């Protein structure tokens, strides 16, 4: 008798709330990972849009150690704090952010060639 579908409780908002808890607190926007060419074969990677809840300096420190590159935090009037790293670290950063669950895969936008 338990097969009667009408009697089952159905929460119509189950789906609606599902999406919410996927995003870590405070990051409602995309995180953009860009790459810029410098002179010669050198490149520069910028990470924009990490929420204010995270300490960028500590992140940079971790990036620097992990990817063996230099990097800084740049303050920008419009885009907030932006992380700059030397070299093309797009893949590394993407993987890192996913691994530490700072961002979901859908949230990351990798730009550039």
């Amino acid at each position, binding site marked *: 008798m338990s097969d009667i579908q009408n009697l089952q409780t159905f929460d119509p908002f189950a789906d609606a709330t599902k999406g919410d808890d996927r995003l870590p607190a405070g990051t409602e926007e995309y995180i953009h990972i*860009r790459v*810029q*060419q410098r002179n010669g074969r050198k490149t*520069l990677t*910028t990470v*924009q849009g990490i929420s204010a809840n995270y300490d960028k300096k500590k992140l940079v420190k971790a990036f620097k150690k992990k990817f063996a590159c230099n990097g800084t935090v740049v303050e920008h009037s419009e885009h907030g704090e*932006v992380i700059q790293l030397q070299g093309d670290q797009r893949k590394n950063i993407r993987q890192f952010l996913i691994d530490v669950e700072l961002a979901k895969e859908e949230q990351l936008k990798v*730009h*550039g*060639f």
Partner: protein
Amino acid sequence: MSGDEMIFDPNMTKKKKKKKKPFMLDEEGGDGVPGEEAKEVEAKEVEPEGGDDKEVDFDEDEGRKKEPSDDLDDLNFLNQKKKKKKPKKVFDNEVEEGIKELKIESEEPEPIEEDDLDLMLPVKKKKSKKVDFEEGLETLEKDDVLDDDEGKNNDGISFSSSTGPAWAGTERDYSYDELLNRVFNIMREKNPDMVAGEKRKFVMKPPQVVRVGTKKTSFVNFTDICKLLHRQPKHLLAFLLAELGTSGSIDGNNQLVIKGRFQQKQIENVLRRYIKEYVTCHTCRSPDTILQKDTRLYFLQCETCHSRCSVASIKTGFQAVTGKRAQLRAKAN
């Protein structure tokens, strides 16, 4: 992708079998039943859709293998060597997979298949399990006969199945799978291209990218590609420059000159992304779309399915200082 899978699902297992079979034949040096093969070939000749479908299936497999890699893979650039190689590779993989599957799934049927009973046995096994639930053991024998018929039908995927449903003329109940198959066959028969019969391939000219000096790159057929995509050069230009994070302009010969070194492959990548976002319809993926600007937002209007959706605006985002700071300062003063 999930939607596609839903659509393809009903025939999935049977298709696989079909694919496996030629391989089997190859390996065993034509040890299988030649009559069966001939039948298959005939069926294919009669219905070109059968062939198409196989291809689709194939595509889908490819998609599943490297799943999150965007749907961009169906944007074919013509003379891209990688792309050309890929299908072959995938096929190899598939064949290999086929071997594995054969070994894993049907270890018993393999030896049996050699003595003329091929293909029917696994089907029977699967079916019989289902039947057990519904009808019990008595009808099993009857079912076996029916299944044989079905097996033959499925070999060539006869869409115009004039023979009628498999359950016709017997007092057996039709199973859900059979009904599903039937309805999909009818759908495909009535409008072959509509019902996700094929994955649309979007074939593009490859971008011609030439180095100008050491620090600049020229995109020679930029305007051609704009025309091909039915987009304003201005729009594509804005996107390219924003994505590449550089500056550039269109010169006198309608070439796009970009600052920085870029290879054709890299430009292709960016173009692919552009096509995915701004050219193909997000609903039906047809490239037959119009980009309109409406109250500061861009909308993509599909000419095939008439859906309309907004697309992301092009933003450059943060740009780091890469030039000489001294120059910047000099400019500011």
